[in-house]
């Protein structure tokens, strides 16, 4: 039996090599290790717990590492009703998260204020922080949260990492200023 051919890829010589671009590899790492900041403020947080538990299992998407410190988190999941009293705290937590960061508004309350047309409730968390994905539902099913996470992953995969950096632009001479 012939074990060696003269052409093509030989793993014994070349090793386990996959060729890609640095950008694609870094995006792939990022997209599959989104650490969520669970901003659980109301009943949506119960569904968020279900997403983390075994039936729905958010760790299939690399996001099981719920970080209760904003400094270690990538994606804030705003799960629940945001009151005006809570709004400055939420903004502060968002500001403490390191770049790059993403926000999911989970459920009707976080997206628009929901049924709380009231003096006490912020009418949508996008009044104070930029939101990437809105999830409908009151509360949303856990599958909807996973769907939002997949959409975030798709978004991250398309974002360039290296080519956006200033140092690369300067080295290649394409920096504007």
């Amino acid at each position, binding site marked *: 039996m012939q074990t060696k051919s003269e052409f093509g890829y030989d793993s014994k010589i070349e090793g386990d090599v996959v060729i890609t671009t640095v950008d694609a590899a870094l995006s792939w790492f990022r997209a599959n290790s989104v650490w969520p900041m669970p901003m659980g403020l109301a009943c949506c947080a119960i569904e968020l717990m279900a997403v983390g538990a075994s039936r729905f299992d958010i760790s299939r998407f690399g996001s099981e590492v719920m970080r209760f410190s904003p400094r270690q988190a990538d994606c804030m999941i705003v799960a629940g009703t945001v009151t005006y*009293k809570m*709004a400055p705290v939420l903004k502060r937590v968002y500001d403490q998260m390191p770049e790059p960061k993403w926000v999911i508004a989970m459920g009707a309350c976080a997206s628009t204020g929901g049924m709380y*047309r*009231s*003096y006490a409730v912020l*009418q949508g968390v996008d009044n104070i922080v930029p939101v990437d994905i809105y999830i409908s539902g009151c509360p949303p099913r856990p599958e909807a949260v996973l769907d939002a996470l997949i959409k975030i992953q798709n978004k991250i995969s398309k974002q360039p990492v290296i080519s956006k950096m200033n140092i690369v632009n300067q080295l290649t001479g394409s920096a504007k200023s």
Partner: protein
Amino acid sequence: MAALASAQKIKAKFGDLISEPVEFRGEISLTLADAQQIFEVCSFAKHQAGFDYLVDITSIDNYGEDPRWAVVYHLRSVKNGEELRITTPLSEEKSELPSVLGVWRTANWHEREIYDMMGIRFAGHPDLRRILMWEGYPYYPLRKDFPLAGKPTDLPGLAFTRPAPLEGGPFVTAPGRDAIEREPRVRTPEN
């Protein structure tokens, strides 16, 4: 009925200050004419009439009437299984009555909530701060003359509020045959 006997006991002690006990659906209510005597009445109710548990303190805004406020105390005797309600009217000019914190310690947060939502002050309360809204919020949102949508406020660096879009609301449910009829809709007195 045991609660009625306890109410009569309180009535006998304070005389004209207390109204005759009113019974409605098995619940006994008393009205105290002078809100400034509430501490003495509550102290007597606890120590002589056995009402050892304060269930709740609530307040009513009778907007357009005088006196505007009514403060309602819900008492319960755990060992006798009795319940009693004491209502006391309070004028808007005064808007202050004695705290009953010295009788039941649980009154602390109840009185803070009434201060926060209605703006009624409790003399002798050791820590009369807002409990739900933040310090510096300029309105009392459960008053009848406060709009449902809220009013705009801005405290830079602390908090802000904006009126909520009501879209013709409030949306209320009504009895009906099916879910479509019962669904919350804009319902004004005309339709």
